[in-house]
Structures are given as C-alpha cells and as structure tokens.
C-alpha cells in the first residue's frame, strides 16, 4: 500500500504541534516529500523543546560530564556513577511544572512516577526520592491550595510505590504565583551486571510494550510543556494524566526481575511523546530502526487513531527490546505481575521509524530526521538594562523596618526558613529501612545494606541571588549543595540539575539561561563535580511574565561510614560554638532582604570556590573523626537563623558573641547584615570543650578560618550586644510558620 500524498499543513495545524513553518519546510525538504498528519504529529512532538532541547542543547554542551566515578553521563535515562564493588548509583531530576499547574495532585504525582521510571529503566532499584518545589506566597488561598495539593500528589505516588522521599526544598515567593515549579529527583542502586541501556539492536528482535493500556491521555503533553500557559490551557486539559502508582510498583518489580535476564536487549520508559519518542530514541541510539504496528497496542478506549496511539502519554508504560525467541520467558514475568506485555513490532535494519496500522503502512520517518533533524536555536539574548543599577545598590544602607529581634522571629516564622515538618510528615521517608538521616536536616543519608558506606543527597535551588546574577546565583546553589553534603561527612560524586526558566524567546530570559548554565558549568568544574544528568523546563511563563531563573541542583555523595555522622542540633550545654568560614556583613539577595525590602538588589554574595573546597574538606574530616557535636551549613536566613535552627533542633539555648567590631561609620543596616547576611562558605558547629584543640588543629591543617562564637546552653538565644530571643519563642515561630498557614485552611 502506498501513502496518499498529503497536503501542506495550515498555520493552525502547525501551531497545534508547536512547529514553525520553517521547521516544517526543513523537515519536508530533508524527507523529500510532504509529511502526512501522523508524521507531522510525531515530528512535532520530537522537535518540541521538551524532547529536542533545541534551545538549551547548545548551552548544555558546556557541562562536563566525565569523571573517574562516572559510568554513564547524560543521554541515557539517568546518570550513573560507580560506588565501588560493582554497585552503581543512578539518579536524575526532572520537572513536572506545567502539568502541576493544571492539576496539582496528578501533575505532581505523575512527575514522581516519571522520574522513578527513568531510574528503573536503567535496571536500578529506586531507593530515594527528593522534591524541589516553588509556589507563590502562602497568604493567598490559591497558593496554599496548590501547594497542599502538590505535596499530596508527591506523597501519594511515593508512599504508594514504597520509595522513601528523603529530602527536598521548598520556597515561596510571589514570583511563582502563576507558575509553580515541581521538580522531582530519584536515586537508585544497581548491581553492575543489572545495568540496562535504552538501546535497540538486532534486526528481527521483537519490540514489546508493557504495563498500562494506552489511552487518550496526555496527547500533546510534550508540546504542551513547550509553550506558555495561557487561557487556552483550559482546552488542553485532556492532556492531564492520572497516575497509578500501584501499577508502577508492579511494573518496577517486573522490570527489575527482567534486568538480570539474558533475554533483555534494551529498556526505555515511555515518557513525553509516548511511543514515538521511546521507540525513536532506542532505535536511534542503536543505529537501527523500529517498525510498530499500532493495531497490536492494548487500548483503554475504543476508536483510537494511530495518531493517538503513537502520541499518547499514558503513564506507567515501558518499551523493551528482547532477544527473538525469548518472548515467552519475558511474558511470564509480566504475567505474574498481572501486566500486559504486547509484542507491538520489531527491530529493523533501516534506520527509520515505521508505523503500521494492521496491514497498512501509515508513517515512515528516517530517524536522522526525527531525532536529529531539527535546527538548534539560539534566540537573541540581552542583559537587563537596569541590572547595573540594581547590582550597584547598597542594601545595607536601607533603613530596617523591624528591630533585630523582630526581624529574627519574622525570618524564623517565614515558611522559607521555618520548619518543614508539615510537608515531610506526609511523605514516607523511611520505607526501605535505610534512612539514617531523613528530611529536616541538611542532607539525607542512606545506608547501603551489607556495606559500611552510604549515600548522601540533597537538592538545592538558586534563591533570590539568581534573580540578580544568574551566573553567581547558580554557582552559589552548587556551593550550598556541597556544604549540605559536607556536614554529614559526604564527598560529592556527581550532580544532576533541573533548569527552570521563563520564555527563552524573551531576550532577558535567554540571557538568564546563558548565564545560569555558564555558572553551573564553571562551578561544577571548579568543585570537580561531573554533571551526569539533568532536565530543562522552559516557558514557565504566564501572559508574558516568567519565573525568575531557577536552576535546581541535585547532588549525590558518598559517606565512608554511615554510623559516624553528625546532626544539626546542639547536643549538650557547655559545648562550644564555632563559625567555620568567613565573616561577612551583607544583605544582597538574602531572605531578609526579600522580606524586609521587597525588592532584591545589590551584589550577591561572593563565591570563593577554593575556600569552599577547603572548608568542606575540613568539615568532612571533623565529622568523620567524630570531633563535632553538631554541624549545620549556614545559608538561608544567615547566621542568626542557622544558630536558631541548631538551638531548636537540640532544644538548647546559646550565648554567642559576634567578635566583629562595629565600624565607626557603620551603615544603618550593619547589624542586620551581620545576623542575616547569606555569605557563602560558612558552617556553624558545636564541639565538646575537650575537643576544641582537635577542632583548631584540623581547621589549621586545612587553612580554614575558624571563629569562636560562644557556648551552648540556657533558655534563650543571644547574640551578644545585638539581639536575644527566647528559645521557646524561636521554636514556636519556626514550627508555626508553614504549619500555621496550612492549618488556617
């Protein structure tokens, strides 16, 4: 049968699949003929920003992905690092921002489902989830509702499938009112022999689709994530998918059973652009082609067209290529878990994706065009014209609206700095029986059964600094992640990242992207951390207003001995409190500035990577040597908030003196800058009096500045001469901030 000669698509048809006329013309020129509607739909999805990364790819090339411990970098479903003794760790972070804006519970839930599939598609058992989320201010009921529903969705999926959610990061700022961010990260473990690649090979080998039936849900999801949200988002709502974590749990177990099996050739999850993308990518990686017969795909609904089958984004499906003749062995495994396993096609030697509908060939697209045929984009970029004046502003000279005490309590009760128990108690953070340190501290720590070492992980996003200076802000997020690992004694292995931006066709957004990716590349290189996986989410924009640049950094590290680690809470009255790292007096880009001054301005904190590296090394040594009673990295809210957090967690007060002389010409905000400035590279530690010499020796050995601040004890937290609050008031402020908003309903 021959295909009818199609007509050129209309403008409306192209818009539907987010393809430009020039892109269409390039595709038909490469193909030497017009594309029929099915081919057009498949190509549109594959060439969408979401699948092709056509705008971000040129920037992402700056990221270095190699390193001694890296087994697989970007390009596979998840990055893989070597933990030694044939154990591998796979991890990745991914966004589900647009779906979560439309349907918060299911959008967030299916985001978790998707990232889990990326990890078990590699043959790794998921052992931990983390989430990084952003919303508008909680004093608005819409934001409270959205936030509560996203947390519910994340918990719903992770709790049901039985993977602990061990950490995350939450931040509220009116800049996210119209575009919430929901990024989910998954970490898994695999024996080396279990590692599977998403590669098709061996012409004649059958291609199977396993898991859920295919429905009409999510058609055009990839396209949807590649355009702005506008009023017409309502009409796209059939794109919403309902997750089935129960089915995914069965799918996970069945796939992991299969991963040691010689019958398995390649495994790939079915994500954005559904079957089209999973088949195209698997075949393309293997230098072969795939032929699919859509008539063989189990459907949830009657009357689905080939177009709908090929572009459905129904959740909880995987595509596999198996050795010819082994179909039954594979099928048995899925049968046992009550899962469908359809043989939907076969590997072919011609490098093309061929679609049949029963006996009729309905589409033929060479993979070179489908996967690689798009043109990379480099939209114009422009540095904001008012940036220099904003950077030049001096926030220390602004008058402070509140006293030091009031500022301190307001910060503690801000949902951004206060306790996040309201969130993480809704997440099972213990299932798996490996969580040594769960949420509520700096980094999470997981033991690895049968070994003495463990994993540490954290996710940290650039905060307000990135809005001023995306390069610096992103680098600061990397530094914060490194510090969060250091306080639990962990050394970074590799990082994953999720780059959330507005509309790249706005020159200032493009500039933010260039700067942020540059900052990430530089910082990762300087810290010696390879970037093994990541994700980009663009068009987080509503009616022309986009989010501030929000790169998230997921960092995984190794702890040599999980049994030896230190918490952030003070442990004993009489312990001495030290600040390791530089003193600093500044406010630009800080949480205090956001709360008190509304706008962010000034020059964000300086990043001295060399100093950060030695300080992290010193902290690791101190933690591993059990020298410290507590260790906490000093970031959001500055020294005063960090100190209060250690007091609250330990139920102990503190008396400290900040040994900085007030300069004679001190600006108005000087004391606020001391207490609440977010100078990078600092840790607040406590140590038993008899170990002080050891602390000094280790710090000196590393050449790290260390400053005695005071002593643990009492019922208040006092920063000598500047401010004092009751421990009880601090505890109430911190516990009541987020929870207070949420319990208000």
């Amino acid at each position, binding site marked *: 049968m021959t295909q009818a000669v199609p007509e050129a698509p209309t403008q409306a048809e192209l818009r539907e699949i987010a393809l430009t006329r020039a892109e269409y013309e390039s595709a038909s020129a490469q193909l030497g003929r017009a594309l029929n509607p099915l081919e057009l739909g498949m190509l549109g999805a594959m060439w969408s920003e979401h699948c092709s990364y056509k705008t971000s790819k040129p920037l992402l090339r700056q990221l270095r992905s190699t390193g001694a411990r890296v087994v697989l970098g970007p390009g596979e479903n998840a990055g893989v690092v070597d933990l030694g003794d044939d154990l591998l760790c796979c991890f990745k972070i991914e966004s589900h921002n647009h779906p979560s804006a*439309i*349907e918060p519970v*299911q959008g967030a839930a299916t985001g978790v489902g998707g990232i889990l599939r990326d990890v078990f598609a590699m043959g790794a058992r998921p052992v931990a989830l983390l989430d990084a989320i952003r919303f508008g201010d909680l004093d608005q009921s819409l934001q409270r509702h959205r936030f509560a529903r996203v947390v519910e969705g994340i918990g719903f999926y992770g709790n049901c499938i039985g993977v602990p959610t061990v950490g995350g990061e939450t931040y509220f700022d009116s800049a996210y009112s119209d575009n919430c961010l929901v990024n989910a990260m998954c970490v898994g473990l695999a024996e080396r022999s279990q590692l599977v690649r998403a590669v098709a090979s061996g012409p004649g080998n059958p291609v199977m689709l396993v898991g*859920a039936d295919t*429905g*009409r*849900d999510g058609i055009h999801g990839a396209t949807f994530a590649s355009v702005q949200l506008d009023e017409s988002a309502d009409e796209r*709502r*059939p794109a*919403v*998918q*309902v*997750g*089935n974590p*129960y*089915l995914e749990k069965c799918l996970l177990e069945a796939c992991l059973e299969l991963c040691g099996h010689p019958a398995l050739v390649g495994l790939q999850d079915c994500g954005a652009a559904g079957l089209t993308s999973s088949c195209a990518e698997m075949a393309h990686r293997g230098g072969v082609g795939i032929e699919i017969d859509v008539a063989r795909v189990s459907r*949830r*609904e009657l009357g689905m067209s080939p177009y709908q089958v090929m572009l459905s984004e*129904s*959740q909880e499906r995987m595509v596999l290529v198996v050795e010819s003749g082994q179909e039954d062995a594979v099928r048995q495994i899925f049968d046992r878990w*009550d899962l469908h396993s359809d043989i939907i096609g076969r590997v072919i030697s011609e490098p093309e994706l061929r679609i049949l509908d029963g006996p009729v060939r309905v589409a033929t697209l060479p993979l070179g065009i489908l996967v690689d045929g798009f043109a990379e984009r480099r939209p114009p970029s422009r540095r904001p014209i008012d940036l220099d004046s904003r950077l030049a502003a001096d926030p220390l000279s602004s008058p402070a609206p509140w006293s030091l005490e009031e500022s301190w309590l307001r910060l503690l009760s801000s949902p951004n700095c206060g306790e996040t128990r309201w969130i993480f108690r809704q997440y099972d953070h213990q299932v798996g029986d490996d969580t040594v340190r769960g949420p509520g501290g700096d980094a999470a720590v997981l033991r690895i059964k049968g070994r003495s070492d463990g994993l540490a992980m954290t996710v940290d996003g650039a905060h307000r600094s990135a809005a001023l200076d995306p390069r610096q802000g992103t680098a600061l997020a990397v530094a914060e992640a490194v510090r969060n690992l250091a306080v639990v004694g962990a050394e970074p292995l590799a990082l994953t990242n999720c780059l959330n931006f507005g509309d790249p066709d706005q020159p200032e957004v493009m500039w933010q992207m260039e700067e942020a990716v540059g900052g990430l590349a530089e910082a990762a290189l300087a810290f010696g951390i390879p970037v093994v996986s990541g994700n980009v989410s663009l068009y987080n924009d509503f009616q022309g207003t986009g989010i501030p640049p929000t790169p998230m950094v997921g960092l995984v590290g190794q702890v040599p001995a999980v049994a030896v680690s230190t918490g952030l809470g003070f442990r004993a009255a009489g312990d001495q409190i030290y600040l390791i790292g530089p003193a600093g007096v500044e406010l630009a880009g800080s949480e205090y500035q956001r709360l008190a001054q509304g706008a962010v301005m000034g020059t964000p904190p300086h990043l001295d990577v060399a100093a950060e590296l030695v300080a992290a090394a010193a902290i690791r040594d101190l933690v591993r040597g059990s020298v410290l009673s507590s260790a906490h990295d000093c970031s959001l809210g500055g020294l005063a908030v960090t100190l209060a957090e250690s007091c609250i967690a330990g139920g102990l007060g503190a008396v400290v003196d900040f040994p900085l002389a007030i300069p004679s010409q001190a600006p108005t905000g000087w004391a606020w800058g001391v207490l609440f400035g977010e100078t990078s590279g600092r840790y607040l530690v406590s140590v038993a009096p008899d170990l002080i010499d050891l602390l000094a020796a280790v710090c000196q050995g590393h050449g790290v500045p260390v400053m005695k601040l005071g002593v643990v004890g009492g019922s208040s937290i006092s920063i000598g001469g500047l401010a004092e609050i009751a421990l009880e008031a601090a505890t109430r402020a911190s516990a009541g901030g987020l929870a207070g908003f949420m319990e208000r309903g």
Partner: protein
Amino acid sequence: MPTDNRHRYIAEVVVTLKPVVNDPQGLVVTQALHALGYPEVGATRVGKFISLDLEGAEESQVRARVEEMCRRLLRNEVIEDYRFQLRREEP
C-alpha cells in the same frame, strides 16, 4: 413546623472521573470482580458520592446553589464530571 417557607433539602451529588480520564481504581476493581467469579462485569468506574443537608426556600434556588457548590468545590473540573439529585425532606 417552620413558620416561614424554608424547607430542608437533601442533595446527593455524584462526582465521577471524565470518561477520557484514566481510572486506575476502576480497573483494579474490575479485575478483582473477575477474579471473584463475576466475568459478566465489563467496565467499572469509581467516583465519589457526597450528600448534603441543606436549608432553603424555593427548590430552583437551592438547585442553583448546589450547582454552584459543585462547580466551585465538589468537583475538580479538570478531571471530573458531576450530577446531582435534589429532594425536599418532609418535616
């Protein structure tokens, strides 16, 4: 006896997933019914049933209010449909 013309009503609202939306729960219940020996069951869909006690005057007004409650709160319009029955309770 109410002296004014106010009455008690009961509204029974049924909220179901839209037909195109995946209903994992319905799928599993169908499987379970098959396994229990009820092969005659085809599709099963699971939704919510919400009953409201209300007070109001005219039935048409009460109906309009319930309609509004459904739209604003009781159903999630992204994925759900609703319908309801209203009946007046005799005192």
